[in-house]
């Protein structure tokens, strides 16, 4: 039987899945790599480590699949986190580490650009919010802070482009990842000259833009031998993880949305038109030539809950992380909606959508003498979900949404999907596929091999659990608390700035 391999270059690890023609997972392997934080705001990864880890993991999976004697590997399809930047010299040798999406070193460059009229123009042309995550601002940072490296840079790549270059010898970037660089014109699918001019680079320093279904790259002979993959196996460039998550969530039609909560989180909708947000708060990335994925990302997903459990959960050595998590959720369930008036603003890592404020902080508000640990657990969870609703409310201004698919291990816990349904007052369907991203990669690959006629048809093959329906009484409570949540977020904005200045001062001393 034919077998399709998906290679997910994620934030913390590479995950490799093998699917059969029915979309069933017949093999899986993963390998973690490290994120380094050499200074505050810095977030880097070693491109060679990612490449070597990917080779290891892929090689093991391929030999496992082949040893069954049942499958013929017909394609490899790639996906990767958005917004990474890797500078390489004229020999293709990396000039230092890759900078990840979570890196905030371009704060100053962001502030400067936001004061200009150009900011709105670039946002409208490129679909990428003006924020340090954007490769555009990372390049600007490099230009003003590491001039020598900037001048030595022959190409500005994403991590995925680097990996594909190693394997095939070609510099390419798919349209989807390119649309998250802040450098691509999302309306006519070419590099945006004004953005390139502002960054001080030329189109020759960027990889060739190809469609996500492109399979013109050929695996180098040496890797064919070492991996045991023949020249007939197609190398499909694939898309960004965010866009594949939407496809893999089965939402190829308007009126539906996905909420993904991993370490970070995002809510996304799909449409044939760019979503115009006056406040420049929503992204518009490209899935393929016909569809845009629009929405907002939050920094504060399950990473916030993990922080909470590390600090306050009852750890003893006999407990696994999953047990700790389960205990916390059980305790949260003992408290009513609204946590008896305890609110939590979850901005432990600053925030992207919808406030785009890297200085924002976490806040517990409304504690009184009757609150106990359970209320804090409940409030922490509700705070993370309220933030998703803040993004959701913006999207609801532009589109009607009647059903939402939820992805990610945190959000698929029954309590969490129920709370989300109550907060949004919209039914939530849990995606039962292990990885929405790789499922998306499978659907694209299967379409390329004629199993589906179109991505729309492919997306219909996704089966979801019966939706969790909202409880109107709870929604009424949450609607009020959410108003307070938004008010607090808004009100505290100057205080967040003040605190940022204070801590910057004390860091200097």
């Amino acid at each position, binding site marked *: 039987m034919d077998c399709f391999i998906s290679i997910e270059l994620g934030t913390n690890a590479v995950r490799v899945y093998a699917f059969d023609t029915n979309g069933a997972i017949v093999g899986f392997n993963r390998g973690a790599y490290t994120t380094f934080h050499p200074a505050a705001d810095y977030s880097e990864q070693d491109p060679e480590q990612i490449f070597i880890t990917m*080779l290891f993991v892929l090689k093991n999976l391929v030999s496992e699949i082949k040893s069954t004697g049942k499958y013929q590997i017909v394609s490899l399809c790639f996906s990767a986190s958005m917004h990474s930047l890797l500078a390489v010299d004229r020999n293709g040798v990396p000039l230092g580490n890759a900078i990840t999406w979570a890196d905030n070193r371009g704060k100053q460059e962001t502030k400067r650009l936001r004061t200009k009229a150009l900011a709105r123009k670039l946002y409208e042309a490129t679909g990428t919010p003006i924020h340090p995550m954007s490769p555009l601002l990372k390049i600007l940072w490099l230009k003003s802070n590491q001039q020598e490296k900037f001048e030595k840079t022959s190409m500005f790549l994403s991590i995925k482009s680097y990996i594909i270059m190693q394997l095939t010898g070609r510099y390419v970037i798919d349209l989807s990842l390119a649309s998250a660089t802040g450098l691509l014109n999302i309306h006519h699918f070419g590099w945006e000259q004004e953005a390139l001019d502002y960054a001080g680079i030329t189109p020759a320093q960027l990889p060739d833009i190809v469609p996500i279904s492109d399979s013109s790259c050929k695996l180098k002979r*040496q890797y064919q031998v070492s991996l045991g993959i023949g020249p007939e196996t197609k190398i499909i460039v694939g898309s960004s993880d965010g866009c594949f998550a939407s496809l893999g969530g089965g939402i190829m039609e308007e009126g539906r949305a996905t909420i993904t909560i991993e370490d970070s989180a995002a809510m996304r909708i799909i449409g044939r038109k760019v979503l115009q947000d006056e406040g420049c708060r929503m992204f518009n990335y490209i899935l393929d030539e016909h569809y845009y994925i629009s929405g907002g990302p939050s920094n504060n997903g399950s990473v916030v809950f993990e922080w909470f459990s590390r600090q306050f959960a009852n750890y003893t050595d006999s407990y696994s992380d999953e047990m700790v998590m389960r205990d916390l959720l059980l305790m949260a369930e003992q408290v009513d909606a609204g946590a008896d008036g305890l609110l939590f603003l979850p901005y432990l890592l600053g925030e992207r959508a919808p406030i785009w404020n890297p200085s924002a902080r976490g806040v517990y508000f409304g504690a009184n003498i009757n609150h106990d640990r359970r209320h804090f657990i409940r409030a922490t969870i509700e705070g993370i979900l309220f933030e998703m609703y803040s993004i959701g409310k913006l999207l609801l201004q532009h589109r009607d949404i009647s059903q939402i698919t939820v992805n990610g291990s945190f959000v698929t816990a029954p309590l969490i999907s129920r709370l989300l349904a109550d907060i949004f007052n919209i039914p939530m369907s849990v995606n039962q596929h292990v990885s929405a991203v790789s499922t998306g990669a499978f659907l694209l690959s299967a379409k390329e091999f004629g199993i589906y006629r179109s991505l729309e048809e492919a997306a219909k093959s996704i089966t979801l659990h019966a939706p969790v329906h909202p409880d109107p009484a709870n929604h009424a409570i949450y609607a009020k608390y959410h108003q307070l949540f938004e008010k607090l977020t808004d009100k505290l904005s100057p205080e967040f700035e003040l605190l940022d200045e204070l801590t910057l001062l004390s860091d200097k001393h």
Partner: protein
Amino acid sequence: MNQFLFKQDNGNELMLFPHILEMGVRKNLSVQLNAFPEIVATRFCVYYVIDGKFDWQVAGRRSIILPKDAVYVMPGEKIGGVNGTLDVGTVAWIHLDIDCLLDKGRNQGKWSGFSESEALTIEHIFRMHRAAHLPILNEVSRIFQDIYTELQQREVGYASMVNQLLDELIIVLVRQLTRQSASSRDFPKKFLQLEQMLRQNLAHQWTVEEMAASVGMGTTSFTERVRSYSGFSPLSYLINLRVTEATRLLKQPDLNVTDIALDTGFYSSQHFSTTFKKLTGYTPREFRKKNLYL
């Protein structure tokens, strides 16, 4: 214990023990200004508080040291009272030349009974934790007392007894240190520390026992934890780091392939070549050629 001070160049108590540079107990009855200025330790210094309460800077971190607490600093780390003050209380200390222990191979004045691999593990743990405040470490009190008694009374076999007690002191410190950092609460952070340590010294022939000990875990649970966290066994993860570093170094034209092999921890250029080719399909030399002339 009463007040005393044994010093290498003063009296003959330490004559048979060139590795003990100083040992003493001080009862401080009033706050003494400038009695304990912050200095850079030149040897391995262990302190143990018997009574009182001391406010110290240990390797740049302020610590309140209470009775039964031990503190140590490695050579090169700073220690001293806050503003140089020595607070009221009783403190015992011993200064050791620990290089003899750590450089076991070249060691002439051999005093410790550690095997070579034990000594290496201990060295790695002290390298990762160059100074520490270890609260409530009762055993240290007894060990100090016994060393003092042995040195005083010089009964038959006292030289061996003292050296054994020093080994015991080091084991007690190291075990407490690893236990203190062994809670499963923050494995990712520990794993990152471990990775940085491995990357700094890839040439060393790491064993799983060493890696586990340096993050304060037993071998079995460490292996399990690494596997579930990274997807690799500890040794595969290490090979992965070796090939990663070799890949980077091969792209620098001025380095010799054999040197790269040894620097990244392969036994020989043959071993390097086989491992590298298995994964990438290239021998290191072919890989270099491909990557330098695009």
